[in-house]
């Protein structure tokens, strides 16, 4: 069985966001790029499944739609333990475009399980996984918090309001990963970093596809007021402040 993990290349979560070109683009000067945190969890879970010899996963691949600046991020995915990386060489214009490109790749290179993060920490669109399943005409399981294989059967937990849903299903499917799928993203080991040098990073050409949306303008949220710490011995002071300053009581 083969797993494909979709990887979005996003600015480090501590980046101070600035815009360029009349607020129509994110200014990426000086930005540190990372694997989208949800995708990193999906990748970690995929690798755990492959390492567990009781099931039959034999390959974990990662795919990204992006330009060459994604390569370092893909090599990190290889260092963490993916076997192969594919970069579809195009600017990721919108979710439809990205899902369409990945779907086209999968049609020619089938996978049993396709994983994507529930959202990406840059635009938080939450759309690629769902669109991908539509393109591929297979089920999409959203908000997946557990993925296990028991005697060949795939068992999935989904977070639903106030509880969880347990599903059993057949591959192929698209799993849309939520936090909880694994404990923590994996830190690449020295050996993995070294082996990543020799693993394939395949760059493929995009197919002809038009984006369905375009960005008109970005706007920064209002600056948050600074945080005030009040010691636990001064609870009355806290209540007073909530009344007089925050005016929420």
């Amino acid at each position, binding site marked *: 069985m083969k797993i494909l993990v979709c990887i979005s290349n996003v600015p480090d979560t501590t980046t101070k966001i600035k815009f360029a070109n009349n607020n129509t683009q994110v200014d990426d000067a000086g930005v540190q790029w990372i694997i989208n945190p949800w995708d990193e969890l999906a990748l970690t879970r995929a690798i755990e499944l492959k390492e567990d010899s009781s099931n039959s996963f034999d390959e974990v691949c990662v795919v990204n739609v992006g330009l060459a600046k994604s*390569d*370092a991020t893909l090599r990190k995915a290889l260092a963490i333990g993916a076997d192969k990386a594919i970069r579809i060489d195009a600017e990721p214009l919108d979710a439809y475009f990205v899902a369409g490109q990945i779907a086209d790749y999968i049609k020619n290179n089938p996978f049993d399980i396709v994983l994507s993060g529930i959202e990406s920490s840059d635009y938080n669109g939450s759309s690629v996984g769902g669109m991908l399943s539509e393109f591929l005409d297979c089920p999409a399981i959203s908000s997946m918090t557990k993925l296990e294989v028991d005697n060949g059967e795939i068992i999935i937990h989904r977070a639903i309001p106030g509880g969880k849903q347990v599903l059993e299903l057949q591959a192929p499917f698209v799993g849309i990963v939520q936090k909880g799928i694994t404990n923590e993203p994996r*830190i690449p080991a*020295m*050996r993995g970093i*070294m082996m*990543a*040098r020799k693993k394939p990073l395949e760059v493929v050409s995009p197919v002809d596809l038009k984006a369905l949306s375009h960005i008109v303008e970005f706007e920064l949220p209002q600056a948050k007021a600074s945080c005030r710490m009040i010691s636990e011995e001064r609870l009355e002071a806290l209540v007073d402040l909530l009344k007089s300053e925050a005016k929420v009581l």
Partner: protein
Amino acid sequence: MNFELTEEQEMIRDAARDFAQRELLPGVIERDENAIYPKEQVKRLGELGFLGMLVGTEYDGGGMDTVSYVLAMEEISKVDASVSVIMSVNNSLVCWGVQKYGSEAQKEEFLKPMARGDKIGAFLLSEPEAGSDATSQRTTAVDMGDHYLVNGIKNWITSGGTASTYLLIAHTHPEKKHHGINAFLIDSNLEGISVGPHENKMGMRASDTHSVMFNNVKIPKENRLGEDGQGFKIAMKSLEGGRIGIASQALGLASGAYELALQYAQERKTFGKEIIKHQAIAFKLADMAVEIEAARYFCLKAAWLKDQGKPYGQASAMAKLYAAETAMKVTTEAVQIHGGNGYVKEYHVERLMREAKLTQIYEGTSEIQKIVISRGLLA
């Protein structure tokens, strides 16, 4: 000239940073206060490959360059220098010598498990009467024909209580002065070896420092490292590289304290503004940033020279001297910037200050580095 790191070097630095922030930071204050050996953390350090990152892949190491090692040491030392000293001693004082001077059999038996992190190595040079003056070795290893018989005391041994492998320095022919010194590679559990109590230290309290006593310890002939009489050279050459490790540790202590101080100075307000807006504090931070940057270049330059196969003894002594002095200065200022909070444990900087002091002492005191450097000027 090229100041750019490779993608791989950046990845190693980020891995070390993630590891330090996620796995070393929790509990670091308690481990220091109660002098608890970081067993779990050292195990993870081994799993991630940091304990043998400089060892060649053919001996189960990471095969990484020294520049990467500096980057990883800095990140880990920002958070927990008790862990980074174990990493430094294992990599540069023990594994390096075995890889460079060891026989194939020694590499198989001793190097591979240390490179994997399955076993930890300790470096036994210092003695009660032989610290700065390392030639005054009193520990003797008498050639008994089929084995050496070792008697003596080693002092201040990092990982002395936990290491499985000792790289031991002892006199075989005291009359030949330092040409009569040899190095040996031994299991720490040989009969006749005993370990003194854990030293109750000012800083790096979680790393276990011990005296080690040798009482008629038999060491097989094949456990001598290198040629007969090469021991002092092996020790000094190992320290040349070791100083890059300790310099990077000092760098990490400085940059770790600086990052905390920079953050604090933007949050703490006095007289109606953030303290970073008082010039006295802003200038302190500017001085700290400059000195840290200089220390980083010293460390990376020494590492680069070593990676290029060029002589690096002078550069590593300069890096060790400058970085250790910077660490002491910067951590002291970081405490100052924190005011009263700097003097209590939960803000970390007081610990970094206590730890910085050690970098001016071990692997050659700052005074000894000046001796090395000034001799180098005349060479």
